[in-house]
Every structure is written in structure tokens, then in C-alpha cells.
């Protein structure tokens, strides 16, 4: 059963199309990553799923094909962390969490109890009686994160949950997301941090300029991308490698990081040929490994070449 079913959805804003004929199936359970560069239409897609925006064309169903209700009506089953974080600045942290719980339909006493547990877990229990505006941005984000999960929703939708967090806080949040999925619930989150998506997600969808460019389990996306991939690490004489790496008979495309590189072999070329060529050229190698393509490489390959050409939408909140 699909938790979320997006069918041929199109959403236009004045001047541009934010989402174009997009179809997604988010199965029940597990972690689903919505990947894409800035302005790809991730947030618009999420807002459409939440029912905050209405699609111009197509259809969105939640919790199975019969689930005709939009995100607004089913809100008690969904936890939502918007990309634009917003809290009442003057409210005390605990009061705010209780309020967020109450508007999701849980009782005041229960909301209070759960809020205290969350604040403890997120290591902001000392800030319970402080005003939201006194908290750092990262702490505010944690409060809002807790607010989205307070009612124990079966579907959790997080728009860029890790952006702006330091590694320690990002780790805490990641653990919570993994735990939710392990409990059989569904998590959909958007990101442009590929390494994290690759490590966490069961399934991903990559979108660019409002269109779906890759979709499926991580293994599937990698298999679909195809080709043989080689990871290189240079020890010395890096410049000598340039001529070899520029040979289109050997290399189809390359992600160059300077001291290391990820390559896609050209059609028909063998990794052994590349290794021989590099050794002959006198390049010092620290690493030479035949690998699966990383999501990052796939992402860059699919949308990277014209990443700069991707039109950034006008800075209106609804179109971001």
C-alpha cells in the first residue's frame, strides 16, 4: 500500500512551472528521500502533498487509493516540518509544544507529557520555560521537529530537516528519523545532501526543474544509472593523470575532487585499461576501486551539467 500517491501532478505559478507531470509512489514504511537541487520543486511537491497547495493537474492520494482526503483533513495522521521554520517567537517552549500537540488533536495533559519527553531527548530540557526567541536557530528547529512528531503520526514529512544543523544535532535528528522508520512508520524527507540520503533512504526520487529524473530503491537507481564506476585516490604526480583522464575512450564522465575522483568508465572500456594507463603515466595512486556509482554522482550526472542553468524561482515562499 502506498502512503503517498502522486499521479501526473502539475503546478504552475505565475511565470513558471514548479512541478511538471510528476508521479511518485511512496510505499508505506521506510525512509523516502526527495532529492533535487535548489528550486527543483521539492518544497512545492511537499506542499502539494500536504494539501497546502492545490495541483493544477493530476491527483494526490494519501493512505491508499481510497484516501481522498487531502493533507489538511488527515493532519492528525501526518507530522509536517515545513522548509520555512515558523514558531511563535514570544511563546515559551513548552507552551508552544503543547499548543502544537493540541491543534493535532491530542489532549493538553498528554501533549505536555510527550513534550517533556521530547525536550529531554533533544537535550533542550533546560529551555522549557524560555521564550522561543531566546533559543538558537538550531534549537528552534529541534523544537519544531518535536512539534511535528508529538502526535506520533504514521506519516512524517520533513522538508530539509537537516539543513542548518551542526553535525551533532544532525546526528540526533537522523537517529530519530531512523527510529521512526524502524517502528514501521513512513518518513518522506527532502534534501540536497546526497551522502546522507544515500546512507538513510530506502527509496529516493531525484527531481530537477519540476520533473522526475530518477526514482526507485537506491540499488535500483544505481542499477538504472548503469556503467562501471571507479573511485581514485591520488598520492603524487596528480597532474600526470590529466591526459589519461581526459581520454574519452576510457572515461565517460568524471567527478573531480582534486586528491580524489569518481569516474564512470566509457562504454566498452575496462577498469584494467585505466589502471595500466595511469601506472604507465607515472601517477602515484593511493586508491583504485571499482565501485557502485554514488547517489551524488548520479545526481550530478542527471542534473549537474545544467545545474547552473536551472532557473531559480522568484523568491516567493510558495514557489521555493
Amino acid at each position, binding site marked *: 500500500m502506498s502512503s503517498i500517491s502522486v499521479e501526473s501532478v502539475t503546478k504552475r505559478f505565475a511565470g513558471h512551472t514548479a512541478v511538471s507531470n510528476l508521479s511518485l509512489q511512496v510505499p508505506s514504511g521506510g525512509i523516502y528521500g526527495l532529492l533535487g537541487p535548489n528550486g527543483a520543486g521539492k518544497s512545492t511537491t511537499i*506542499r502539494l502533498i*500536504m*494539501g*497546502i*497547495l492545490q495541483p493544477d493537474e493530476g491527483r494526490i492520494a494519501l493512505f491508499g487509493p481510497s484516501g481522498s482526503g487531502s*493533507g*489538511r483533513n488527515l*493532519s492528525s495522521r*501526518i507530522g*509536517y516540518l*515545513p522548509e*520555512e*521554520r*515558523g*514558531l*511563535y*517567537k*514570544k*511563546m515559551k517552549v513548552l*507552551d508552544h509544544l503543547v*499548543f*502544537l500537540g*493540541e*491543534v*493535532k*488533536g491530542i489532549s*493538553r495533559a498528554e501533549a505536555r507529557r510527550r513534550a517533556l519527553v521530547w525536550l529531554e531527548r533533544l537535550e533542550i530540557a533546560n529551555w522549557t520555560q524560555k521564550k522561543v526567541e531566546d533559543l538558537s536557530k538550531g534549537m528552534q528547529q529541534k523544537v*519544531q521537529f518535536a*512539534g*511535528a512528531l508529538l502526535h506520533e503520526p504514521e506519516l512524517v514529512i520533513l522538508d530539509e530537516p537537516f539543513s542548518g544543523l551542526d553535525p551533532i544535532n544532525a546526528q540526533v535528528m537522523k537517529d530519530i528519523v531512523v527510529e521512526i522508520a524502524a517502528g514501521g512508520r513512513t518518513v518522506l524527507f527532502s534534501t540536497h545532501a546526497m551522502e546522507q540520503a544515500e546512507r538513510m533512504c530506502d527509496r529516493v526520487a531525484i527531481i530537477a526543474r519540476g520533473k522526475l529524473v530518477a526514482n526507485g530503491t537506491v540499488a535500483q537507481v544505481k542499477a538504472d544509472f548503469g556503467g562501471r564506476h571507479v573511485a581514485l585516490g591520488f598520492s603524487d604526480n596528480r597532474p600526470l593523470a590529466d591526459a589519461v583522464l581526459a581520454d574519452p575512450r576510457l572515461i565517460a564522465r568524471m567527478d573531480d575532487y582534486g586528491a580524489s575522483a569518481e569516474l564512470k568508465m566509457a562504454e566498452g572500456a575496462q577498469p584494467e585499461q585505466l589502471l595500466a594507463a595511469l601506472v604507465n603515466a607515472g601517477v602515484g595512486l593511493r586508491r583504485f576501486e571499482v565501485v557502485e556509482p554514488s547517489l551524488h554522482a548520479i545526481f550530478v550526472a542527471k542534473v549537474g551539467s545544467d545545474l547552473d542553468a536551472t532557473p531559480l524561482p*522568484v523568491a*516567493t*515562499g*510558495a514557489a521555493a
Partner: protein
Amino acid sequence: MNKTFAVIRREYVERVRTRAFLISTLLLPVFMVAMAVLPALLMRGGDHTSRVAVVDASGAGLGQPVITALGTATFGDSAQVRPRYELTLFTTDTEHLDQVRSGLIAKAGFARDTQPDGWNGVLVLDADTLASGKLHYYGDDVSSPNGMGRLQREISKALAGVRLSHAGVDQALVAKAMAPADVDTAKVTDGKLTGQSGKASFVLAYAMGFILYIAILSYGSRTLTSVIEEKNSRIMEVLTSSLTPFQMLMGKVLGVGLAGLTQMAIWVGTALVLGSQGPHLAGAFGIGAAAGNFAIPSMPPSLLAVFLLYFTLGFLIYGSLYAAIGAMCNTIQEAQQYAVFVTMSIVVGFMSMFGLINNPSGMLGTTMSFIPFFAPFTMPVRWSMTAVPPTQLALSLGLMVLGLLACVWLAGRIYRTGILMYGKKPSWGELWRWIRA
């Protein structure tokens, strides 16, 4: 319903907790007390016993009756009656008048601490006075219209008495004839006495209208500001994913309204206490009976009920309109362009009260109490000043409820779409589409 209640509670608690709420709640009663007490305190300055030298050069024995008449004038309340004038008679003749007068004037007009036996005024009665009524007063208080009016009244009385007795009328009869009229006003409603004076009704009506005006203008427009703040802080997106637009709208308007009502209750309560305890409080301030004129009359329960009913309905109508405007706009400056229309109708309603005070049952008053935007102002005023037929009250309330439903429906439609619209403000055409959608 529980969700709406959560929104109401949040709006209410967060508002009532603020320092601004506390300060404004305290400041208005302080202001009210100051308004009641200050004029009395200021007027008290004029209340002291004046030492007046009466120079009688009339040759007709005019001095003594004038002194008798002025001597009966007193001020202060029953606890502490003090004579208004301390009088000394100097009888002289026309030849010596100038000399006596100059001598007395030379000792007049000094501050009391520098010249304890000086005069506050010198009153000169000459030979013409009895016939022409013309006399002269030289004093330090001639620029006080109150004091001079009083003096003139007392002397006129004395002159009339002397003239009458010279004409052979019995002195006792004169005293009886001269007893002043004392008009005591009382308001009648439905053929029954309400126990209020005409002045009391006026004060009450004016005060209520003013409170309503301030409340709607400050609290109603606060819903506008608060919607815009929510849009700008992007909390709106979390709220829309949990609440229906109607819940958000009603919760906000009711929560803000309740906070307003709380403040009103504190103010009206203060006013009632001031009214009923007026004389005691006045005593505490040491201003005596003068404050009695400014005491706020006690409020009859029916008027209180009408006032609260119209306050609530009026507030909800204006509050939802303000919220809808907030939903349409992104900045307060932008919203003010639209809010002007709403504010204008509040001002018109408020201003109409002044017209009503002259003729509460006229065409204007009756018509305006059927228009939901104005009725919250006109109806309580009319109720306090005149007997409003029950059918009119029922019709007016019915129209208010209909108007409220229409406004809330309209605002809800605009709210639904508007709260998530950032960027440019909608054209009238777009607005129409939001409402129809």
C-alpha cells in the same frame, strides 16, 4: 472544537500575559480617575473664604442687607461648611468715599501670607446703587467668571430684597419669595422611573461608546497585525497543516476578543466601583462634594447586557473583517490601505453617537441601529437614553447575527487562500475568485 479552543486559549493567554496588556489595562483607569478627580482638584483652588470689605456710601442702609445675603453663602460639604465670604462693613458718605476706597484697595490683592489682614476684594455701594443696581467691586478674583457670577447673584438677591422692603413688602415674605428653584432630573423608561438623572445617562452613553470605539479599533486591528505576523513568521504553514481556515479565523478573533473583553471588564468594573464609591473616594482625595458631579452612575443590568451583547457581536464582525484583510496582505503598510475602509465605518458609527445624544429615537438613530456595522455603537447609546421598542432590539440583533455570519463566511473564504499567499497583494478580481472558489 477542541482545536479551536486551543487556538482561543493560545491567543488569549499569550496576549493577556504581555506587559503591554498590563500597562494599558492599568493606565486607562488611572486616566479615568484623573479625568474625574483633576477638574475637581483644580476647582478647589477657587474655594476659599474671601475677605471682602463692603463700603456702604448709599446712605440708604444698603450695606447691612448685602452683608446678610453674602454671609449666607457657604461652600464645602455637610461635614465641613465654611462661609464663602468674611465681610466687614465700612459705612461712609459720598464725600469720603474716594478716600476710604483708596485706603482699602491699597490693602487688597496681596497673597494671604504676606498680608494676613489684607482684603481679597472691596465692594462699593454708592448713592446710585439702589436705583440703578450699579455697584463696583475691586478684587484679586475678578477674572474668575464663576466667582463673579456668584457674587452678582448674591448681590442681586440682596438688592431685590431691599427694594421690595422699601416698597413696603414684608421681610419674611421677601425671604420666602426669593427661595431658589431646585430642579432634580430623572429618566423615565417604559413608564417607570429608572432612578438615573439625565446627566448620568449622557455620561454613561458617552463612556460606553468610547470604550467600544477604543476596543474595536485597538483589538480588532490587532487581529490584522497578528495574522500578518503569522504569515511573516511562516508559522501559518504549520497551522494550515493542522487546522481548518475557519478554526484558525474563529480561534483568533475569539481569543483576541476575549482578551479585549477581559480588559473591558476590568475597566467597567473600575468604573462601577468608582461610581458607587465615588463620594468615599472623593473623600479620600480630600475634594469633598465637588467630585459628586463627576461620579460615574451605576449601570442598570439590562444596559450592561445590551452593551456586552453588542460589544461581542460588533467585535466579531470587525475582528473577522480585519483578519481577512490581514490574510490578503503581506505587510502592515499594505494592509492599512484596505483597513481604512473598516476603520472609517467604525469612526462613522462612533461619530453618530454625538448626533444620537440630541435625538436618540430619531430617523438617524433608528436606521443606524439596523446596520450591523453601526448598531454596536448606536444601540447601547439609545438603550441608555431612551426606551427602545423590543421589536427594534430584536430586529437589530437579528440583523447583527446575519451580518456576522456573512462577514465570517466572507473572511473564511479569503482566509483560506490568502494566508498562504506571499508576494504581491491580490487584485479585486483575484479576491473575488478566492471568495467563489
